[in-house]
């Protein structure tokens, strides 16, 4: 009996030992001198791919400065919540990436270090950065709490072969896009004019914003109050939903795509002739077996009478956690990550656009594509509203668009009134704060 009991205890003790050992392994982050802990967002094909891309660069940093970096690649699905938990508990990494959409929301928590002029001096000055990218760093008029790292914009990807076969040129206006899409749609062959990530909340918010801007609509007024039911916003959402509801140039099945990558697959396989995606779409399409010579890039067109807006300034920013014990090391790290050399290497690896002026965009060998993206970022991209409620805006308006798309897919025709009701509800939910 005794021996049996003892035997039963051994595994338990071993487990306990293993557990304690493991927990000690993690203990370094706060205490050891000059080891930064860094949460990187998942930019590459997989978490592992990110590690492979970043590790040599971090080693370079360690060589230059003697500061070690403990890297943690966090999937986007967890990044916001993990950052939130870090902000709430005061326990987090020293440096982290955030989606620039969230910059204002996180700024309002007060958990991030604010880059004042002195801090900007330490990382090489404000003027190094692309102005439109830096504008996403935080609420205007405050010292920003994040620094742009990788910039992206939306563009229209079109299948060169399908367009050539139909004798079409890339569309210059939204009306052209619709008529091209109609010509390219052939449900019998399972081919549609354009693919949309119908059930993806954040993309749906993005499109509602871009098209709203084309109609002169803005989701927030100057005081930061939501104005979702302004005519421009309604028209923008209607323009997007009409692709499916009115013109039927979208496969209704798109309405169930909860991952933006699912729509990339449809485009890559020739089942859709057009695809609206951010710069990193190049990478995504490559992963799906489509090479850059098979598709062209154009700015997302606006209605002939509308304003030429093709994108908002998307991308990833880097922030310093206010409670860091290694502020100087963290600033050095931000400086390193935004140096021209690293910007060139990293943005090339991730097929994104550099956030600093003197780093050349190099994410593809195709000069035409580079130029289009660069031009969109410089001329046709508006920043998203920098209000603290942007997180709720994304959830509520994105969610409203998703449910409109779902309704359209299941056969309903969406009227202006339907759009208005949906947006009204979204706005009332904002007011509940």
């Amino acid at each position, binding site marked *: 009996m005794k021996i049996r009991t003892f035997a039963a205890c051994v595994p338990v003790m071993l487990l306990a030992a293993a557990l304690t050992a493991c927990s000690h392994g993690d203990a370094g982050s706060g205490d050891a001198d000059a080891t930064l802990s860094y949460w990187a967002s998942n930019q590459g094909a997989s978490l592992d791919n990110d590690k492979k891309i970043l590790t040599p660069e971090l080693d370079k940093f360690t060589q230059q400065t003697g500061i070690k970096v403990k890297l943690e690649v966090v999937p986007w699905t967890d990044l916001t*919540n993990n950052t*939130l938990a870090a*902000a*709430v508990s*005061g326990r987090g990494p020293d440096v982290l990436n955030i989606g620039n959409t969230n910059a204002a*929301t*996180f700024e*309002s*928590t*007060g*958990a991030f270090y604010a880059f004042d002029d002195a801090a900007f001096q330490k990382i090489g000055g404000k003027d190094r950065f692309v102005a439109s990218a830096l504008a996403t760093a935080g609420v205007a008029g405050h010292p920003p709490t994040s620094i742009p790292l990788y910039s992206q914009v939306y563009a229209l990807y079109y299948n060169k072969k399908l367009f050539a076969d139909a004798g079409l040129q890339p569309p210059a206006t939204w009306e052209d896009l619709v008529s091209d899409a109609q010509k390219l749609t052939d449900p019998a062959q*399972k081919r549609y004019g354009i693919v949309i990530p119908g*059930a*993806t*909340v954040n993309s749906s918010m993005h499109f509602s914003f871009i098209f709203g801007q084309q109609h002169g609509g803005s989701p927030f007024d100057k005081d930061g109050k939501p104005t979702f039911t302004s005519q421009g916003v309604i028209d923008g959402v209607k323009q997007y939903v009409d692709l499916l509801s009115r013109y039927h140039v979208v*496969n*209704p*099945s798109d*309405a*169930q795509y*909860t991952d933006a990558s699912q729509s990339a697959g449809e485009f890559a396989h020739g089942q859709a002739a057009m695809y609206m995606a951010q710069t990193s779409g190049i990478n995504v399409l490559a992963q799906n077996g489509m090479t850059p010579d098979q598709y062209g890039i154009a700015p997302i067109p606006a209605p002939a009478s509308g304003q030429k807006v093709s994108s908002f300034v998307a991308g990833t920013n880097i922030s310093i956690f206010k409670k860091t014990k290694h502020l100087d090391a963290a600033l050095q790290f931000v400086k390193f990550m935004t140096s021209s050399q690293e910007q060139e290497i990293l943005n090339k690896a991730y097929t994104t656009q550099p956030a600093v002026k003197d780093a050349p965009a190099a994410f593809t060998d195709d000069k035409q594509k580079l130029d289009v993206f660069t031009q969109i970022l410089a001329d046709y991209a508006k920043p998203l509203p920098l209000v*603290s409620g942007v*997180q*709720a805006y994304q*959830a*509520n308006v*994105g*969610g409203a668009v*998703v*449910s409109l798309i*779902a*309704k359209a*897919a*299941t056969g309903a025709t969406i009227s202006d009134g339907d759009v208005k009701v949906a947006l009204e*509800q979204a706005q*009332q*939910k904002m007011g*509940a*704060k």
Partner: protein
Amino acid sequence: MAVTLPGPHTPTSVAGTTSPDPTPSRRRRFTWARSTPYLLIAPAIAFELLVHVIPMLVGIFMSLIQLTQFYVTNWSAAPFTGIGNYRVALDFSGPLGQQLARSFGITLGFTVLVVGISFGFGTSASLVLQRVVRGRGPLRTLFLIPYALPAYAGIITWKFMLQRDNGLLNQLLVDDLHLAHGRPFWLIGGNAFVSLVVVSVWQQWPFAFLMTMAGMQVIPEDVYQAAAIDGASTWQQVRHITLRMMRPVNAVLVLLLFLWTFREFNTPYVLFGPTPPESADLLTVHIYASSFITWNFGLGSAMSVLLMLFLIVVAGLWALWNRRVNRDA
């Protein structure tokens, strides 16, 4: 009484050998014997306090303040709103209150269906396998595999099967059997509710099967033999012996399935993402969406507390009902 029912009025077990005598003196010295039960439950209490009770109390506190992104790093600065969050949640003329009410109705319907079907499947399978010897092992294993798969894997497989264009279901219904015209959607629109119920049943019924099967194992064979000699049909035996003897097990099983299903999060979340179709908008995901995603934690907490209150009422009714049934039995 067959199951230990929590509650001060349920002296399920007779006084133990070391229990204090009926008139304990307050000045009696500490003795090991008297503190034994407390020492035995101490670890359970400590852990439950740490992981459930204290966070629960914090959650209740959160429901009373206006906890948004401006205050998450400094809760003490968050304005105290009292029942303000509850008022918003229960304001059925506003969209949040309406959606909460709708979500509650959907969740209730979902729970009743899933628990009912899972329990029905589990009991039926146990009944027909009760006295089968050949082939029972493999079938039992097969039925239990969905329970052993990581939840995410099972749900993602269903999501794959329910795709409109490339899914198995439409291939079967539309292309192979020609039962449906046009390709129906299963992940959006009204059908999403059906899908959610089916997937949840797929995951839950093996547990019901496991519990009922084990319960039936202990019903002595001679009871059936006696009934058979008296001329009872198989169906009568099922009704009067098996189901009657199973009542205590079933009572616990149904209560637990109800509590778990009502709080189901994984299945809708993996199947539909953070914004489920209206028809499948279950409460926990709804609360998650109005709390975590829009950073309105006070409101989310208030909704959670309401959910908890409802479940407490359910458990209370269950306890009353269970006590009466047992008294009558």
